[in-house]
């Protein structure tokens, strides 16, 4: 599930806040290129996308977005270091086979990374698991265990722990539930977490 499916177009406004004019932007899993086309229009960015789904790639090309048909996990290696100002990964980190390598790759080719993911620590997920005794199924995680694209479940706490271990800096973070800001207890209340991160200065 993509961020925009969770809270409408709020992610556009949010990502638009994060991304300055004329930035070089790579969107991993860019879908039909709607976000990139919108950022091109609004912010005159240099837009690049990666998308695995052939039909979506064709839609993105038809709307004039530069897109590479490929798997985002295996597509990062070709880009040169520092090729982008921002690399966006919206809502697919939990689908990656090697999430840490993906994040490392993003921060190799981009000065900043925007990472959004569904929070597995949300109280509904916890409750569903506790009460049913089954793999949790919620609006955010609607799949059965056997057909879910999600293979790495992470929470807000998990993600921040990883950032600390990697000594990556959090520049901004946002938490959302039902399209609204979550101000307290994000690991319990946030459905979606969005981080703007970079390597720390010492690196």
């Amino acid at each position: 599930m993509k961020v925009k499916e969770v809270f409408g177009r709020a992610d556009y406004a949010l990502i638009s806040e994060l991304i300055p004019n004329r930035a070089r932007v790579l969107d991993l899993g860019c879908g039909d290129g709607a976000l990139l086309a919108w950022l091109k229009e609004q912010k005159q960015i240099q837009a690049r996308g990666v998308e695995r789904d052939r039909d979506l790639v064709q839609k993105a090309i038809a709307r004039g977005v530069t897109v590479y048909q490929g798997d985002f996990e295996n597509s990062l290696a070709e880009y040169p270091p520092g090729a982008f100002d921002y690399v966006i990964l919206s809502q697919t980190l939990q689908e990656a086979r090697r999430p840490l390598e993906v994040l490392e790759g993003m921060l190799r080719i981009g000065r900043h990374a925007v990472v959004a993911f569904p929070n597995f620590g949300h109280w509904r997920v916890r409750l569903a698991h506790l009460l049913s005794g089954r793999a949790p199924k919620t609006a955010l995680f609607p799949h059965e265990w056997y057909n879910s694209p999600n293979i790495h479940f992470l929470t807000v706490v998990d993600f921040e722990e990883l950032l600390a271990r990697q000594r990556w800096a959090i520049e901004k973070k946002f938490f959302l539930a039902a399209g609204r800001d979550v101000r307290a207890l994000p690991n319990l209340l946030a459905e979606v977490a969005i981080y703007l991160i970079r390597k720390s200065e010492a690196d």
Partner: protein
Amino acid sequence: MVVETQFARFDSLDLDCGETLHGVDVAYETYGALNSAKSNAILIEHAFSGDAHAAGVDHEGKPGWWDNMIGPGKAFDTNKYFVICSNVLGGCRGTTGPSSIDPSTGKPWGLRFPGITISDMVRLQKMLVDSMGIERLLTVTGGSMGGMQALEWAVAYPDSLESCIPIASTARHSAQQIAFNETGRQAIMADPDFNGGDYYGGPPPARGLAVARMVGHITYMSDESMREKFGRRLRNRDTFSFGFGIDFEVESYLRYRGSQFVNRFDANSYLYITKAMDYFDLSAGYPSLAASLERAVCRFLIISFTSDWLYPSYQSLEVVNALRARNHDVTFCELSSNYGHDAFLVDAGEQTGIIGGFLARCMKERRAPEVCR
């Protein structure tokens, strides 16, 4: 709409082999109208056996080889764009080639025609485009050998094109591709009528050329498309003949295509053009493919097809990844098709949407004329 093939003549053309051709003719066609800024011109490059007749119908009512892609409302929309297609150097459809008259002897060149390359073909096209007063093409595109020419344009004349669309193509032939071409050449040269290339005025090496074409046709299709089209069906019979006439549908088809080809193609052109394809290597003279592509400044749309085993996707990806390695503006899409290498000619549907969108963007985001190297 009946289209006329036009002709241009150039005094001389310097070739990569070191020789110079004098009095070079080029056959070409155009569709649509050139705008006053001369910014909407598209150069279409034909594949190995194609010609200048890419769209519309000729006097015999024959549609162009890419008529499903070029025309009003089509991928290359002639309501918006001015489309040019010329027959390649070495061809036999109006442009100077081995069947043309050698001015120094008054006889057909035959194998005395100098060896040619893809970059020679492109150099001649550049002269044609210059003669039309077009400084920068909106795009240069083509499938197969046409894609090789498009890539050569991007590297040889980087300021002369806004974008490049190589389809089902490669930056260099693999051993397998060279091997198929060599098999075709050997079939032609083994024909007793070949006569060292001097068969003009007598019977052409029709059997050899037909066999070469049969091999070619197999490589243009896919296992799946052949299974669908022919399977093991017998041709006009229920039992085997226990002879060597035609038993199977596929035999009949290949024989037919082979014999038809002889009527429209010159065996010497087959030799010269396939050799030019085999010689082509975009990275020649550079340390790497990426280094050669560093010369390019245009945008790229690179298309391959899932079932194309003659020009497999990995060859397109080689170019795509060399461009991505320096974050060049390259779009890549592998379209789904059962038609094998032929897909670029017959599968217009999906190509239309993406090429239309890509061209509209290229038109809108044209580089300023001063943004030159």
